[in-house]
């Protein structure tokens, strides 16, 4: 499995062969607060890089989830739909959002590595 990549919209992505697993970052959950609702993209649907791919809602507000790359949704994580609080406790492992069959791996080039993302999220927080 390759290294984890990050988007400016605070999503993370892990690539395994043709399949990318995508979720939202710890930093994103800290900004959102307690998550109480999640909507995931439909199985078999095609999502476009930086396009809408679901919604998370905290007690305070609703926020869109974006996909950092394009592809076909081959799996979505029903366990976070049933228990959205999981997203707050383990956002970067167990509480992944969906898996994509990647359309164009070169789209990953524009994403950040862990170090770059940490710097980015620190700056955007201040």
């Amino acid at each position, binding site marked *: 499995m390759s290294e984890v990549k990050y988007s400016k919209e605070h999503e993370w992505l892990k690539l395994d062969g043709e399949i990318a697993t995508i979720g939202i970052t710890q930093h994103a959950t800290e900004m959102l*607060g*307690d998550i*109480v*609702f999640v*909507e995931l993209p439909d199985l078999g649907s095609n999502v476009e890089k930086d396009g809408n791919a679901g*919604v998370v*809602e*905290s*007690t*305070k*507000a*609703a926020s869109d989830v974006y996909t950092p790359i394009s592809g076909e949704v081959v799996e979505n994580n029903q366990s976070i*739909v049933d228990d*959205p*609080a999981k997203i*707050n406790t383990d956002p970067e492992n167990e509480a992944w959002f969906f898996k994509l069959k990647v359309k164009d791996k070169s789209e990953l080039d524009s994403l950040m590595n862990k170090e770059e993302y940490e710097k980015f999220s620190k700056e955007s927080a201040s």
Partner: protein
Amino acid sequence: MNKKKTALNSLHRKYGAKLVSFAGYEMPIQYTKGIIEEHKSTRENAGIFDVSHMGQLFIKGDGSLAKDLEKIFPTDLSNAKLNQSKYSFLMNEEAGIYDDLIITKVKDGFNIVLNAACKDTDFKILSKLLDNKYQMILSEELSLIAIQGPKAFMILEKVIKGVSNLKFMNGGSFNYLNENIYITRSGYTGEDGFEISIKNDKAEMFVQKLIDEGASLIGLGARDTLRLEAGLCLYGHDMDINKSPVEANLEWAISKNRIIEGGFIGFEKIKSQIEKGVNKVRVGIKPEGKIIAREKTSIFSEDNKNIGEITSGTFGPSVKAPVAMGYVENSFSKIDTKVFLEVRGKKYPASISNLPFYKKSYVKGASK
């Protein structure tokens, strides 16, 4: 714009508050544990709320003051007992609500607690209506602290002897560190609790004492989920200048004898609305499943007619489900009427619900 700070600002920071701008003040939206934990600790234990941004207005006067205030408010104030609090409204001629407020009869007049965003306008309106006949002070020297929850009376009693004898919607003067402070048994969470009016320079020490005795600080986020579960209106959302108390389903707050007598601003409109009914009325709305319908969500009937709009909606941590309030056409306001809520372009089923969503199960042996 420069944000105003309450006397508890540094205490909020000390306890890890996430601070936001609210009605011109820098206020805590939540602390480190988050909204859901704060909500639950208020329902199960005791929560402390800094509501110092709200207005504390003192109007001093003798016998004629109650009569003059009755020309403004739809509330029986002439017969109010000393230290009795009443929920009321400041309205325009069309019975549109400028503000909802709590009026308490005190020895030398009346205390009125006003919403933060409305207090300066309220002051101007009231000064004009009372024609500067009475001394009016909108205090800058006092903080307002609420403690709410089933253990609130026990914790507060440890700090201030005698408070647990107060009856609901009643107040009294108490001694704290040789300072005279005024406390009412009231609140806005659906829980038993108190509101304490205390000098700014004593506020931090007082709140720290409540924390040491086992209560925890609660932010505006949980205050919103608590009041919504309790079916209580938030001014500027569930009521405003375009809605009357009758439309807001708050007719109970208008004193019976005042509806007969009249003589207050907005009376004609209120009377006609009570007699002829209203077109739209505030209701509770319970979405099916987990979908959350926020403010401005459109409400549809089963035959797809737009019948209203959500004014507040969130996830209710104690009812463990989404809850909302909104206005619907009167013919759709019956409990259990099936409606649809349009969220992100899709329609989701919901039903008109009784308020409150959360009903207090009082602990036996708790103070009356």
